[in-house]
C-alpha cells in the first residue's frame, strides 16, 4: 500500500511540475527562447507572496490576486525592455542574458531575504486530507495544486486556440515576418506572452511555497523539473506537459520509495530514458 500511496502522491506532485513547465513551454512555443531564469522567477514570486502576506496578513491563495498582476507586469517589462533586444537567429544572446538574470535573481533574493528557508502558512488546508482508500490519504492542498494545474493548462489551451491574443501568439510563432506584415506588433505580442508566462509562474511559486520550504537557490532545480516535464510530454503540447509532469512526479515518488537519496536521481533517469528511446517526447505536437 505504501507503493500505491507513493505513486498517488507522485501524481499530485506532478501537477506542480506541470505548473513549472507550462510557462517554459509557452515562452519556447511563442518566441523560441529558453528562459534559464524561469525557476528563479518562480522562487522570486514565492518571496513576493511572502512579503505581501507579511504586510497584509492575507491567505497565500488570496495573495495571488496581488502577486499575479505584479509578476505579469514585471514579465511584460522584462520582455520589452531586455529580452526583445536579444531575439534573433542566434540562440546565444537570450540564453546568456537569462542565465545572467538567473544569477542576479538568486543573489538578489539572498541579499534581501537571507539564506533562511521560508514557508507560506496556508492554514487548515495545508495539513487536511481525506481518505481515498485504506492507507491512501489525499491532502487538500496537493489535490488543489493538481486541479489548478489542470485548470491552468485548459485555460492556456483556450487562450491559444480560441482567443484573438492566442491567434497572434501562434502567428508570431509560425512566421514572425508575415505576422508583422499583417499588422501585429511582434514585440508587444512577445511582451504579452511573457506576461502570461509570469502569471503562471506566480501561481506555481505560491503553490510551491505553501507546499514546501523554499530558499533563494531553489530556482535552478525547479527549472530543471519544468524542462524535464516539457521534454517528456513532447514539445509544444500543453496537455502532454501535464502528463510529463505526472510521469516525473511518479518517477520521483518511486525513487523515494527505494531510497530517499534516489528521489531526484530517479526523476532525472526517467527523463534520460525518454530522451534515449523517444527524443521527440511522448506526445509531440505533430502527432496530435
Amino acid at each position, binding site marked *: 500500500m505504501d507503493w500505491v500511496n507513493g505513486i498517488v502522491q507522485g501524481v499530485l506532485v506532478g501537477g506542480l511540475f506541470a505548473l513549472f513547465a507550462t510557462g517554459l513551454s509557452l515562452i519556447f512555443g511563442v518566441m523560441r527562447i529558453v528562459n534559464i531564469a524561469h525557476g528563479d522567477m518562480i522562487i522570486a514570486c514565492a518571496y513576493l507572496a511572502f512579503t505581501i502576506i507579511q504586510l497584509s496578513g492575507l491567505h497565500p491563495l488570496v495573495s495571488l490576486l496581488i502577486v499575479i498582476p505584479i509578476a505579469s507586469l514585471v514579465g511584460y517589462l522584462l520582455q520589452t525592455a531586455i529580452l526583445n533586444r536579444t531575439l534573433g537567429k542566434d540562440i546565444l544572446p537570450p540564453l546568456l542574458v537569462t*542565465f545572467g538574470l538567473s544569477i542576479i535573481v538568486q543573489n538578489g533574493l539572498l541579499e534581501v531575504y537571507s539564506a533562511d528557508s521560508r514557508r507560506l502558512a496556508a492554514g487548515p488546508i495545508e495539513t487536511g486530507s481525506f481518505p481515498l482508500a485504506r492507507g491512501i490519504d489525499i491532502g487538500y492542498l496537493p489535490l488543489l495544486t493538481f486541479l489548478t494545474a489542470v485548470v491552468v493548462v485548459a485555460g492556456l489551451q483556450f487562450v491559444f486556440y480560441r482567443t484573438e491574443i492566442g491567434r497572434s501568439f501562434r502567428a508570431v510563432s509560425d512566421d514572425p515576418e508575415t505576422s508583422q506584415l499583417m499588422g501585429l506588433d511582434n514585440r508587444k505580442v512577445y511582451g504579452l506572452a511573457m506576461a502570461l508566462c509570469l502569471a503562471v509562474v506566480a501561481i506555481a511559486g505560491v503553490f510551491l511555497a505553501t507546499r514546501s520550504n523554499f530558499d533563494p537557490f531553489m530556482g535552478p532545480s525547479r527549472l530543471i523539473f519544468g524542462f524535464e516535464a516539457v521534454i517528456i510530454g513532447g514539445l509544444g503540447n500543453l496537455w502532454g506537459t501535464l502528463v510529463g509532469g505526472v510521469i516525473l512526479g511518479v518517477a520521483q515518488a518511486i525513487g523515494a520509495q527505494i531510497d530517499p537519496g534516489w528521489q531526484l536521481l530517479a526523476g*532525472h533517469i526517467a527523463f534520460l530514458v525518454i530522451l534515449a528511446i523517444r*527524443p521527440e517526447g511522448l506526445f509531440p505536437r505533430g502527432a496530435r
Partner: protein
Amino acid sequence: MQEVTRATAASRFALASAIVLVMVLAAAPYWGSTASLRLLGEIMVYLALASLWNLLAGFTGLVSIGQQAYVGFGGYMLFTICISLGWNPLYAIPIAALVAAPISALVAVLVFRLNGAYFAIGTWVVAEVFRLGFAQMSSLGGGSGLSLPITVMREMASTKAEREALIYWAALLLGTGSITIVYLLLRSRIGLALTAIRDSEVASSSLGVSITRVKLLVYVAVAAATAMVGALVFMQKLRIAPNAAFSVTDWTAFVIFMVVIGGIGTIEGPIIGTLLYFVLRQFLADFGSIYLIVLGGLAILVMMVAPQGIWGFVANRWGLSLFPVGYRVKLQAMPAYNNGKENEYVGRNQAHRDVAAARRNR
C-alpha cells in the same frame, strides 16, 4: 599578384611576448611566494576552463551549462586513483581525460538530441545526475565528501614546496596548453569546418562538412580537457564533496561571465575576461553575492550592447588580431585604385573567403 598570410605584425609581437611571458611564469616557483603561486595556479585553471567553454559555445555553438559535470568527474577520478591505487596524483590528470572522453561521448548521444536552447538545460541535467550519483557512492565519501591523504600527496614529492611547484606547473601547462590547442584547432581543417557551420549549417553540410561529427569531436575533446582541469583543481584543494565538485556557480557561471565579458567567439576574449575577473575579485570578493550580481549585470550589458565583448569591440575597432585564425589576402599594389597601399581583406567570420584562400594557398 597576391599573397595569402595569417600572421600580422601584432600577432608576431603577441606570439613573441607570449613565449617570454610563459617563460617568466614557468619560473614563478623561484620568484613567487606560495600565495602568489596559488593565485597564478587558480588563474591558469580559469584560463583553461574559459578557453574550453569558449571553444564549445563560441566556436561550435554548443552552449553547455553542464561543464561542471566534467570538472567534478575529473576531481573524483583523482580521488579514486589516488586512494584506491595509491598512484602519484599527477598521473590522474591524463587518466581523467582518457576516462572522461568515452563517457562524454555517451552523454553526447543523449544531449545532442535536444535542440540548441534545450541542449543547455539538458547538459545541466546530466551534471545533476553526476552530482547525485557521486553523492550516492559511499566509498567516495557520499554526500559529505572526503580528503586526499597526505601519504598519497607524498607520492608526488616529499616536500610541500616541491608539491606546490609541481601542481603549479601542471596548472600552467593546462592553462597555456588549452589556449594553444584551441588556437591550433581553429587553424586546422576542423576550425575551417566550425567557421563554415557557424556561418551556414545548410551550406556547409552541402559542401560535405559532417556537422554532427565535428560537433561531437569538439564536445568530447572539451570534456576530456575539462576533466583534466578538474583533477588538477581538486589536487589544489585536497578535498572534494559533490556540491563543490559539481557547482554550477564555480565551474560554469563564472566561466560563462568571463567569456561573455571578454568576448565570446574570439581566442583573446576568454583571456581578457579571466584577467578582468581576477582584478574585479580583488575589490569585490568580500561582498560575495554582490560580486555575482555585478558580474551577471556586466555580462547582460555586454550581451546587449556589444555582444562581441571587450575583445570583439577592440578587434573591430582597430582590426587587431593577436591569434589570427583566418586568412588575410594581401593584394599587391594596384596604384590606380588604392594609392599604393596594401589592401587587406580580413577573412574573419567569412568561411567562403577562408576556404577560397586555403585552396589558393595549397
